[in-house]
């Protein structure tokens, strides 16, 4: 399947890191590892900007994280308008990786604060969509 299945509404269908989707479907958080400098990249990338090498090695990472910031979207692009209001957040995982992800609607806004411990979990709500989202620990 193409990468347009990543997220709620994907825009990019063709990429070298499409294998990411099969990890998410197995409930794993995938990252890539540069064979040359051994650096791990999340979100995964196919090219190491340090070594200029092509990356083909995959690994998985831990979803424990801290919220950096968030917003609650009330006015959305047309294809998302029926989901409003919804949360978006940035969180920092172990190893310093940062992620931009939706935050579970089960949390109330008062509970969200920068610095709060959360967990990034893979989710596959439909056969056509797989991604990750931030949930309560």
């Amino acid at each position, binding site marked *: 399947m193409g*990468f347009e299945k*990543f*997220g*709620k*509404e*994907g*825009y*990019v269908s063709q*990429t070298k890191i499409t294998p990411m989707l099969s990890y998410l479907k197995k409930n794993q958080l995938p990252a890539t590892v540069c064979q040359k400098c051994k650096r791990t990249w999340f*979100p995964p990338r196919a090219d190491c900007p340090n070594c200029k090498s092509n990356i083909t090695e995959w690994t998985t990472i831990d979803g424990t994280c801290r919220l*950096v*910031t*968030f*917003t*609650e*979207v*009330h*006015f*959305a*692009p*047309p*294809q*998302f308008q029926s*989901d409003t*209001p*919804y949360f*978006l*957040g*940035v969180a920092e995982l172990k190893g310093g990786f*940062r*992620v*931009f*992800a*939706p935050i579970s609607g089960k949390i109330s*806004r008062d509970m969200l*604060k*920068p*610095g709060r411990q959360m967990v990034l979990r893979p989710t596959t709500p439909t056969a056509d969509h797989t*991604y990750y989202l931030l949930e309560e620990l």
Partner: protein
Amino acid sequence: MGKVAIIGVGHSKFGKRSDASLRELAFEAYRAALGDAEIESKTIDASLVCSATHYDKQRSPAGVINEYLGLNPKPTFNVEAACASSAVGLRTASALISSKLHDIVAVVGVQKMTELPNEEIQELMGRAGDVMWESPFGTTMPAYYAMYATAHMSRYGTTEEDMARVSVKNRAYGAKNPDAMFQKPILLEDVLNSRMVSYPLKLFDCCANADGAACLIVANGEKARKLSDSPVWVAGLGLASSPMSLAGRNGPLTSFEVSKKAARTAYAMARIRPEDVDVAEVHDSFSITEILNYEDLGFAKPGRGAKLLKDHETELGGKTPVNVDGGLIAKGHPVGATGASQIATLVHQIRGEAGKSQVDGAKVGLAQNIGGIGMYGCVTVLKA
């Protein structure tokens, strides 16, 4: 860099300009700038057309605009850096002039946004961020800036009321600017009671899409002295980039690294410090942005931006008057025209022609323009 000056500026009325096409808006600003410089088209060597071209129905708009201005066969091309397009246009013109490739260049910032159906505008807005990693979750322009607001509120105790003060100040100045989209002052309660767009930003915390154009006539030192009694000198040019993805940026997300970096470069080049700035135009795409800008430009210490506002230090009569033409919040934000509009305001200020919004004895002006969601930062210093 060789000596470069602005010898003429022109500005169209900003707003919902259903009376004019893209090329006609460009013409309004160009004609005004030529009149201001007291020159004819034959004196212009090249035009730089600055717009975020994804808003334009016309593909490669420099082609049609250069034609409509009557400038063929002189060189023309588009400059695009989202909301900072025409600030980067001034930088590009300065480089072309400095390198002696051209003597006099017209920088034409223009945008036509209100003609697009709302659906299309919202769809475009949804792709303002990284389309691979962030847009698939329903991002918007306000959402990105709202996330900076949340972080700043949490770290420094900045409040929604603090942010509302920016909109109240800028709308009050907009009421004195005949080219502004919004000419009516608003109250703190109006901002606080306006509908939520992306928490914590409400409708009146946000600038509006608009149509409009602004034009700068830029010349080398020799021509500027010959053609103008009051050239305004380009003294400092700073431009920096940040990752486009928000997750790619470091730190607590309470400041824009692009602004800090661009400001350092521009201050060093102009040999000034933040306290030397007499009047500033900053990128208030959202109320929170102006507060962050105070801190990033060194007008206030980190976390103290809101205090500066409360102490009225960025109003006329204060330490550093900011956005006394109304800013993006009152003028509207025709993306490609905004950078040149800021520069035009500073030129009027430095020449002492800013009327009711004149800052007494303004000699040093600073313009700060952020592109998109903070991936481009442009700071320009002008001197008398």
